């Protein structure tokens, strides 16, 4: 048997306008837990999708068990022995545990489902991981962690040699995490290799054997966990049990240094903020995700929120914009309390939001560029409900040249534009509603470097005109290059407020947003 179960050789992946993976090569050793880490947009999820067969690589070779591996779809990947535990679990709540485990592989007799000896094997695998789950339980009664166990059982039962776990601990409790880790450690004995993706760096040191760090679509380094400073392993010669001791602080910081690389902050110029003019103020805002969020936004200020995916950035934007409900707290606009129940109310108060997902939340692809740009403020181009097309054309042409949207003309459909140009259309749409408070949720995610800089310049220009902006981002250079103050967010809570322009320890910032102590 080969020592490496997976060999990845120079693979690359391109999306229109973006290079998501560049010449990535590394090996994954058999029966290990191999972690992959990196900031958002580093290329982790693209790599996973390629391994899982959900997307095809543009070039390069992958070998699985020494055989070339070219999955056409996820089904094909599964048959080759590669299973994925997605964040959105693939179980059907209305069926029982057994029905879920045999789904799609039922043995039939005269068209009826036949019970087989297969059942015993399933029971055995399931029992080895969680003794409390019975085959006849309804899946809807199980916890998220137990549902994960069901999926892992299914993967083992179908003879998967590799299980990819995409942030499996994101939605489960501390106690369940411990159980899941026990299951993962046990998988090695079942001849299963685990590829583990997580934002929580301490987990990497707890269960990982190897870690691959990715940044900007490149593989930076693959290293054994024991080679990190602060990690030592002792083998008890009597029992053969490996004991690992980790100095979390030292080890995490070393890993963070690899993830961040050189943070280049050259584009920020400090400016005077008049602290007597508070444009927007949140006082103790709480809801399903947020815990006591309080801050002031000054007139003309650009405020940044930095945190990982799931830290509550979007939820703050959505609470201000009237999309999500607030269970507690107060929002003040220019010193007056407001209670916005929907986006149209927010827009009428001159608040505008660039949503996180431009394709599903920002654009209406059935409409063309011109119609999208005016969508948020129809009164600017219509009177008594009738649209003045020439006015609309004039206005949209104006935005197209001002924001340098690369397109044939305003009549072009938005679906085929590149990510950066789509984002500029969304920006134009929001700008046309004349906001005095501008919320931008991941304003430059998935756009190329040039467009990113152009988008940042638009935000800087707005600040000069006295517009107050809040940039919600999971990219540290973005907030460092743009924002006057930066608020660090972790699990729906404000951890730290930094004033930009001073020398900050980026490793420490990343340490805080990944759950480390302040």
């Amino acid at each position, binding site marked *: 048997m080969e020592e490496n179960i997976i060999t990845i050789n120079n693979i690359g992946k391109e999306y229109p306008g973006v290079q998501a993976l560049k010449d990535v090569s590394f090996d994954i050793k058999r029966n290990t837990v191999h972690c992959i880490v990196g900031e958002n947009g580093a290329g982790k999820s693209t790599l996973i999708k390629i391994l899982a067969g959900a997307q095809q690589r543009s070039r390069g070779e992958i070998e699985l068990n020494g055989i070339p591996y070219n999955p056409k779809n996820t089904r094909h990947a599964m048959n080759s022995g590669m299973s994925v535990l997605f964040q959105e679990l693939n179980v059907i709540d209305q069926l029982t545990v057994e029905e879920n485990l045999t789904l799609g592989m039922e043995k039939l007799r005269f068209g009826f489902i036949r019970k087989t000896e297969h059942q015993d094997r399933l029971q055995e695998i399931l029992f080895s991981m969680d003794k409390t789950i019975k085959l006849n339980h309804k899946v809807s009664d199980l916890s998220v962690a137990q549902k994960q166990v069901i999926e892992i059982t299914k993967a083992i039962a179908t003879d998967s040699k590799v299980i990819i776990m995409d942030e499996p601990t994101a939605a489960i409790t501390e106690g369940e995490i411990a159980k899941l880790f026990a299951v993962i450690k046990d998988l090695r004995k079942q001849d299963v290799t685990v590829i583990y993706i997580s934002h929580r760096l301490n987990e990497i040191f707890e269960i990982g054997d190897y870690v691959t760090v990715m940044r900007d679509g490149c593989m930076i380094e693959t290293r054994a966990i024991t080679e990190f400073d602060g990690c030592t392993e002792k083998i008890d010669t009597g029992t053969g049990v490996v004991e690992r001791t980790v100095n979390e602080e030292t080890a995490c910081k070393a890993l963070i240094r690899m993830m961040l690389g050189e943070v280049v902050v050259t584009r920020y110029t400090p400016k005077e903020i008049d602290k007597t003019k508070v444009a927007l103020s949140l006082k103790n805002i709480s809801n399903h995700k947020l815990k006591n969020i309080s801050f002031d936004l000054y007139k003309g200020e650009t405020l940044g929120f930095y945190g990982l995916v799931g830290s509550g950035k979007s939820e703050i934007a959505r609470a201000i914009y009237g999309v999500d409900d607030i269970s507690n707290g107060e929002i003040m606009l220019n010193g007056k309390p407001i209670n916005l129940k929907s986006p149209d109310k927010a*827009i009428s108060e001159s608040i505008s939001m660039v949503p996180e997902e431009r394709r*599903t*939340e920002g*654009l209406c692809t059935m409409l063309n560029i011109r119609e999208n740009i005016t*969508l948020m403020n129809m009164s600017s181009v219509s009177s008594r*409900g009738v649209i003045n097309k020439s006015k609309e054309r004039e206005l949209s042409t104006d935005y197209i040249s001002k924001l340098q949207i690369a397109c044939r003309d305003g009549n072009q459909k938005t679906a085929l534009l590149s990510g950066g140009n789509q984002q500029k259309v969304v920006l134009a749409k929001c700008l046309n509603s004349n906001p005095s408070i501008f919320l931008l949720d991941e304003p430059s995610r998935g756009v190329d470097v040039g467009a990113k800089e152009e988008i940042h310049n638009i935000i800087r220009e707005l600040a000069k005109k006295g517009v107050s902006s809040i940039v919600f981002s999971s990219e540290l250079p973005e907030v460092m290059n743009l924002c006057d103050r930066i608020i660090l967010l972790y699990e729906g809570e404000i951890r730290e407020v930094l004033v930009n322009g001073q020398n900050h320890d980026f490793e420490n910032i990343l340490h805080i947003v990944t759950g480390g102590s302040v």
Partner: protein
Amino acid sequence: MNVKTVDACMQKITKKIPAQLLIITGILVLLLIIFSFFSSRFISSRNLLNILRQSSFIIMTGCAVTILMISGNIDLSVGSVAALSGVTMALLAQSGVPLPIAVMGAVGIGLLAGGLNALVVSIFEIPPFIGTLGTMFICRGIALILTDGFTVRDNLPSNYKLLGHGELFGIPFPIWIMLSIIIISVVLQKKSVIGKYSIAIGGNKLAAELSGINVKKMVSIFYLIIGGVVGLTGAVQSSILGVGEPNIGNGFEFDVIIAIILGGTTLDGGEGSVIGMVIGALIVMVIGNGLNLLGVLTFYQSILKGAILVAAVLLDQRMRKQ
């Protein structure tokens, strides 16, 4: 004009007309040719006017429902609301109310039914298929209760048939009404904020909401517009028949939906056209009329209608994939 500019002009024109519309227009022309070949009576101006008058119910209602369906919703109640409106007009006229007010009564009842749909679908958030199905049964029940299940035909004023049979410049009133509703709807769909919002809501409801469109209010407006138009349709229908018939319009909602889908509107929403629906309705009516003249039983016509619907959607799907 040289050849090149003519060419460019043609290209511009064909680019503006969607392929779907070209195809169904072709089918309609083909049907007209085939039927006039088989039956000399078919192509007579009287018969063609008759087809138009028969299509007017579907087209009038279809105009309003198209805009709703572009927004990704559906209305199954139009058939029984039209019947209820017609019955209301007949009962009002019977009790001595002046005819214009009786017509307004019919439109008012339609608006009430539209309001009920808006309440159930937009405010209570019941899926439109279920919500409007409920309205359909409720309105049919009320129409039957009001009339004790009998046709209202006695003591109607002498001018009761005026709306359905009167003429202006030799063209019946219903066709004038239909034409004006088509024109208003095309303007609404192509030029107005309402038309644009319906595409935005049907194409991407979430983005529409985040862009500040009050989706609930807009969908309510679509249902109210339908209510008013269906009320008028019921009044015209009742006037053409000269009676108030509580059982009329069974299956009318599906004729409307077939015409709309033939016209290129998808059930998912986001796309569609009023003109396409008009052609679709004409195709359905031309087939019915032509086969009647040829003496084909209506049973077979039903099979043909079903087959054409499925074939049209299949064709549309295939074209979209390419």
